[in-house]
């Protein structure tokens, strides 16, 4: 047994993804309808923005195109996280049905297995909406796309995906204690997605403080955005999104705490 080589975690995760995608493809019509549905959920938010800016030409000094850019990048961050970390999002059923017991007896990391339990490809619909908006806003927002700015966008995507995955992880960890997913956590996921279409300072100083130090949305949204649109030249703002990845540390700690306190619900 000793010399059996362990597949790397990443390879194993890819296998999980493959299985999930193939099983989703068994119901093709349902899949495409869901993708279309996801697309329209975000499209209606876009339409709302479009109509608002027909009437108002800027909000807190941000133009329509700048808000679109913010909306698109934030939505991309969210949809990648939702696609990848969906296992955490629907974790409550795993605890309730007791299938988390199976996870615990297998000789692999439980986070990997939970991540692998679901890969929600239908969120590609949301992603598509985000990409289309991004492509539309890209040439119109008046940004000169230099190398540091492109890197900033990539950092934002990395940081944002990590941040939202962390939030999903915390959401899942609560299930160890409550069995049910807690609805108020929606404020931090769906709520953030919905209201994060505007740069965070639109919501005032207190929200910005909250979004910087408690749940660091501003690190992947407001600060790098100000750098992108040239409100600041401070290059440290470029690196702030990477700081948001640190959010995974308390999230993981809370998860470990939850796992240690897990007692099977049986059945």
């Amino acid at each position, binding site marked *: 047994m000793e010399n059996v080589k362990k597949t790397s975690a990443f390879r194993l995760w890819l296998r999980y993804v493959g299985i999930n995608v193939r099983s989703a493809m068994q119901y093709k019509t*349902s899949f495409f*309808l869901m993708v*279309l549905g996801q697309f*329209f959920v975000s499209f*209606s938010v876009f*339409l709302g923005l479009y109509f608002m800016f027909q009437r*108002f030409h800027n*909000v807190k000094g941000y133009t329509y195109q700048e808000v679109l850019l913010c909306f698109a990048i934030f939505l991309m961050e969210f949809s990648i996280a939702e696609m990848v970390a969906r296992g955490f999002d629907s974790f409550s059923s795993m605890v309730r049905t007791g299938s988390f017991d199976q996870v615990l007896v297998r000789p692999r990391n439980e986070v990997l297995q939970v991540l692998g339990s679901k890969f929600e490809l239908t969120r590609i619909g949301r992603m598509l909406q985000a990409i289309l908006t991004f492509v539309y806003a890209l040439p119109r927002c008046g940004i000169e796309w230099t190398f540091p700015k492109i890197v900033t966008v990539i950092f934002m995507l990395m940081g944002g995906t990590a941040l939202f995955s962390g939030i999903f992880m915390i959401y899942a960890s609560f299930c160890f204690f409550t069995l049910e997913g807690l609805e108020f956590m*929606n404020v931090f996921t769906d709520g953030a997605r919905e209201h994060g279409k505007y740069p965070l300072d639109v*919501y005032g100083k207190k929200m910005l403080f909250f979004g910087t130090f408690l749940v660091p949305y501003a690190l992947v949204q407001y600060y790098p955005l100000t750098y992108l649109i040239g409100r600041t030249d401070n290059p440290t703002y470029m690196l702030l999104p990477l700081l948001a990845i640190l959010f995974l540390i308390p999230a993981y700690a809370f998860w470990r705490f939850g796992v240690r306190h897990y007692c099977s619900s049986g059945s």
Partner: protein
Amino acid sequence: MKRTISLRKYHSFFRLRFIQGLQYRAAAAAGITTQFAWGFLLIIAFSAFYESDPAAFPMSFQDTVSYVWLQQAFLALFNTWMMEGEIFDVIANGNLAYELCRPIRIYNMWIARSLANRFSRAALRCSPILIVAFLVPKPYRMMVPPTLGTFLLFILSLLLGTAVATAFCMIVYGLTFFTISPQGVRTLFASLVDFLAGGIIPIPFMPDKVRAIVELLPFASMQNAPLRIYTGSLAAEEVKVTLGLQFFWLIALVLIGSGLCRLAERKACIQGG
């Protein structure tokens, strides 16, 4: 005599569901927090827009604030994306057969059930949100309606709006008889309807041409009608038209829905057992 018995049947079904719905207090508490945060963020965003260009605001800021709070408080009454999972399950898994055996009309029973669920959810959620909305500091505080008459019209319109939303959902249930896979159809319709109902931005904020059309659609008769009557900013003539439209759409949607259900009942094909 026969008539009263049949009505009593649905009435007791309604009561049963209503009381059952009142049991989910923890879920309601969580929902209230979410809706409160949601409403607050919406209002701050609106105030940011107001600062940038007050002249472009289609209704007074005060009215917008009341609109948002009422929307959050009564969300359960007229949102169309929160449909009854049980009804979809019953259609998909074939337990519909049991429902068909009962000496009741499916359409009436499901309407009684949906209304009961909506009212029980709203009953648990609305008062805490409204209390807070009346207590928060001034620019964000909700206003009382200008006259008692406006308030009564608001209540009437609220009930009509709830009925229109429920009747619309019944049509979607009816359609699932023919499609089986409800999930996709649901999300597809839900986001579109939510937008047309004024769930994303209030209908007055839409461009005038779009607004003129959207206001005639049945979706505007759900939340848009009561929330705008409440603030008293609609002229008496407009209120009449709004209420008239609500009546019209209620009747039309009920006719379509019950026709569809009747057709579905006849053609229903029970999937497995």
